[in-house]
């Protein structure tokens, strides 16, 4: 058995599911987002660790808290984008999985259009906020607020891209897939 075969599918950099809804060209982007999640989680852990250590040594690095918040917030929004491509978000129901044909096409399309609309709002208004935030700074590090709030339009753009990818491929290949028979989402296999 290869190493890759031993790793459960949900932990792969590019999840091997719903391939009929995806362009292989965007796989490196999904992998990069997963690496981004890892960097944010490690950076965030390291920042809290050094925050405690420097505080205990009575030489606190106050700017560490701002980096912690930055890693945390970017991690949330990068993860939001990655989860959109991996169809890994929290769902209330999966009624479409039991549907076929036109009805499924209509509802799946509606769902993606809602996600796309929300993502475009995040891009447009998030960018406006990020531009305004260029003139505001977090003390004591003097990091511009834009460094934090830019995560919103960044995630919005990626979510929009993945929603379009799923729409186009869903229309081309159909939304039905081999994963319809299993419970999808937040649970590890």
């Amino acid at each position, binding site marked *: 058995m290869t190493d890759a075969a031993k790793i459960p599918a949900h932990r792969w950099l590019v999840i091997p599911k719903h391939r009929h809804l995806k362009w292989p060209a965007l796989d490196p982007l999904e992998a990069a987002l997963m690496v*981004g999640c*890892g960097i944010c989680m490690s950076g965030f852990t390291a920042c809290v660790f050094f925050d405690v250590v420097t505080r205990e040594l009575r030489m606190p690095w106050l700017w560490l808290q701002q980096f912690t918040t930055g890693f*945390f917030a970017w991690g*949330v929004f990068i993860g939001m984008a990655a989860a959109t491509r991996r169809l890994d978000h*929290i769902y209330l*129901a999966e009624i479409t999985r039991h549907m076929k044909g036109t009805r499924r096409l209509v509802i799946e399309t509606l769902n993606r259009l809602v996600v796309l609309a929300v993502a475009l709002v995040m891009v447009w208004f998030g960018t406006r*906020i990020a531009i305004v935030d260029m003139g505001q700074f977090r003390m004591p590090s003097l990091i511009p607020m834009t460094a*934090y709030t830019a995560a919103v339009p960044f995630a919005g753009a990626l979510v929009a891209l993945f929603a379009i990818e799923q729409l186009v491929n869903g229309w081309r290949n159909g939304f039905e897939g081999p994963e319809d028979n299993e419970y999808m989402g937040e649970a590890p296999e």
Partner: protein
Amino acid sequence: MSNGALIVLMGGSFLLLGYLGVPVAFAIIAGVLLATAFTPVSFDSIVGQLFHGIDAETLLAIPFFLLVGELMTSADVTQRMIRLAQAMVGHLRGGLAQVVTLFSMFFAGISGSSAADVAVLARTVAPEMDKEGYDRSFTAALIASASTIANLIPPSIMAVVYGATGNVSIGGLFLGGIVPGVLIGIGLMVYSYFFGPVGKLKPRATYTELFSAARGSALPMVIPLIIMGGILTGAFTPTEAGMVAAVYILVILIPALRPTHIRDLPRDFMYTGLVYALPLSAVAAASAFGWMLAYLRGPDTVAGAIKAFAGTDPVLIMLLLVVLFIIVGDFVDAVPAIIIFMPIVNALTELGDIKPVHMGVVLVTTLAFGLITPPYGLSLLISAKFVGVPFGKAMVRSLPLYVVFLGTILFCVFFPEVVLFLPKWLLPESVGCFKSPTGPGYICPP
């Protein structure tokens, strides 16, 4: 459009889109944006709220409690705790069912995630239960029910979210959650003993076996002490305690017990990075929902309606909120539910002069119950899938177990002094006590 109509539009479109299959975070934002379009509020404010909703120091604890659970699970260290549970209760009637519950209580002290608990048990104990002839529906129902304890016994992610959004002491909520967590655990064990399948009766473990199992699981069992010890002594905040526990696993536990796992650590970090984003993107969206709900004076309206019915009677107010949260928990994920309804809960807590920690413990217990109730019983859904049984069958088998949860919730409502005993004893400030100006000790208002 009136405020009431806008609230109905916002909540209704969220539920409709959510049940059509739009991810929770996007369904919430879509509902909020739709209602906002009929008000003078700008979309900039709503989008800004997405960031500000997660810009809270206390929420930083969530990734660590998930990381701790992920590291323990993926490094397979949890096997040692299962062995200890087997040595302690494996000889009882329904031995493996008792092991499931006891392990969940142990694991709850390490991880704040029910999903991780279900994953571990479904992978390890469920196949054994299958071999011993346990009904699969019962196995799925029991694993799901026991996994909810992870949300009660500290560290609990629900308690962190509740504390962070409601400005309630997280340490107090952690300590208060121990009582319902243990009560549910005992209730499930008693049910399994008298009414569950018999399983294969095994001899009682010898003292040598018990000692060996305890020694084997000693290193993982230090984690709850690190977390609660750090918080109670004031050495760490909940976030820092989570980080110290994660570092302990990385630096001591994995090298000592599972050194080969070290090369897989980058993957653990990547996966946890993704997993923590899921509830927190719902938090970001729900905070925009809560903000809009407050703008539309939703809390005042609901609080007014409850006041008209219950007056200022704390017990009646709590019971009405329990009913509300049982219904909400059936349809909505716990994390957004806490944030969306927090303004209402705060208003009613004040109205009934209820201790915020007491209210928090009761509502978190109620939402934990929501994890096994249909249609959105997340733990039961995951458990049924892993064990390989239809959700409907697992749900029917879990119905008798509801008594344990309802009994525990009612106990917590009617006996606040028991729920608040540990917070008052170990963290008096968390329940409104203050240092006596005339000498040692604390003065606690009634």
